[in-house]
């Protein structure tokens, strides 16, 4: 449309979409998890659900599913930067899982669930970024943004590990 005003014409041509420099979803998902936490009053007289075998068996099943989930995005021939990020992510993931295996058996399911959900989300993010980077030409202009997003996902996994390690 021609407004006969170059400023309004230029304003109409501006991009309606811009992508953030990093993936904001992991932070959003973590906040949704926090809000989903039910407020449970402590009770001395009634055994918590956590003491019931079915509860921790369910959590253990979720954890096992995450541990055994196929890492299908890891391929044999990958660009060096992607292979390095995949390796670092796998290490951070393994560290987190080793902590969670112990913690999830000794703490309430409500405290364990956000970490399991967070890890599942980080897995999906890492998978998407790794797959996209593996398929992308080395000189693609979007590549640095995706690499930065992958590093950010890696940092979040390490941060989740630190938080899990501090749980009592």
């Amino acid at each position, binding site marked *: 449309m021609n407004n006969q005003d170059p*400023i309004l014409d230029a304003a109409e041509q501006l991009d309606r979409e811009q992508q953030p420099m*990093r993936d904001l979803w992991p*932070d959003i998902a973590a906040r949704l998890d926090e809000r989903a936490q039910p407020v449970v009053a402590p009770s001395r007289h009634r055994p918590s659900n956590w003491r019931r075998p079915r509860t921790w068996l369910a959590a253990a099943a979720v954890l096992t599913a995450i541990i055994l989930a196929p890492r299908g995005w890891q391929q044999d021939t990958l660009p060096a930067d992607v292979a390095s990020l995949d390796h670092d992510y796998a290490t951070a993931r393994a560290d987190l899982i080793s902590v969670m295996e112990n913690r999830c058996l000794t703490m309430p399911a409500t405290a364990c669930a956000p970490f399991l959900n967070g890890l599942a989300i980080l897995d999906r993010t890492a998978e*998407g970024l790794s797959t996209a980077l593996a398929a992308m030409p080395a000189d693609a202009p979007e590549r640095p943004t995706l690499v930065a997003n992958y590093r950010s996902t890696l940092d979040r996994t390490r941060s989740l590990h630190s938080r899990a390690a501090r749980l009592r």
Partner: protein
Amino acid sequence: MAVAQRKQQSDTELVSAAQRGDRLAFEALYRSYVGRIFALCVRLTASRDDAESLTQDAFVHAWNKLDRFAGQSAFGTWLHRLTVNLMLDRRRADQRRRKHETPMDPDEQAMALRATAAPARVIDRLELERAIAGLPEGARTVFVLQEIEGYPVREIAGMMGIAEGTVKAQGFRARRLLREVLS
């Protein structure tokens, strides 16, 4: 079902699933709309850091209010409006906190911008984005909502809690300042 596959579903299906607590459906909605919402937030806040924060807040807010979405408008329209309202609420709260501070003369900002802007006959997008970011808050909000996002004056007045005449005046002021900066 993976998020990429969920994005093939219609917004109506995804919203309906998300309203039942399906987090993957909500993530698919996020993936569809984050570019649009982030662009809006960048222009309204004139800061990429603030825009990231506002975008996150908007999606968390949308998740919490999802049960109130009755499908009378498109989900994108509802989310867009919710984001604008959230930003305006934050700004009002900030203004209440800062009410004792001396505001910078908006025309001083325009003059500062004018000093750094290169004269151009054809308005470059980047230059225009920079000039919009340098506008005083009220004028920038009106310009972004009216000229970029296409909201009618009456609706902007309602959202901002000001008279339609004030919206028009702010729009006029925004265009005048942009013309000065970009000439």
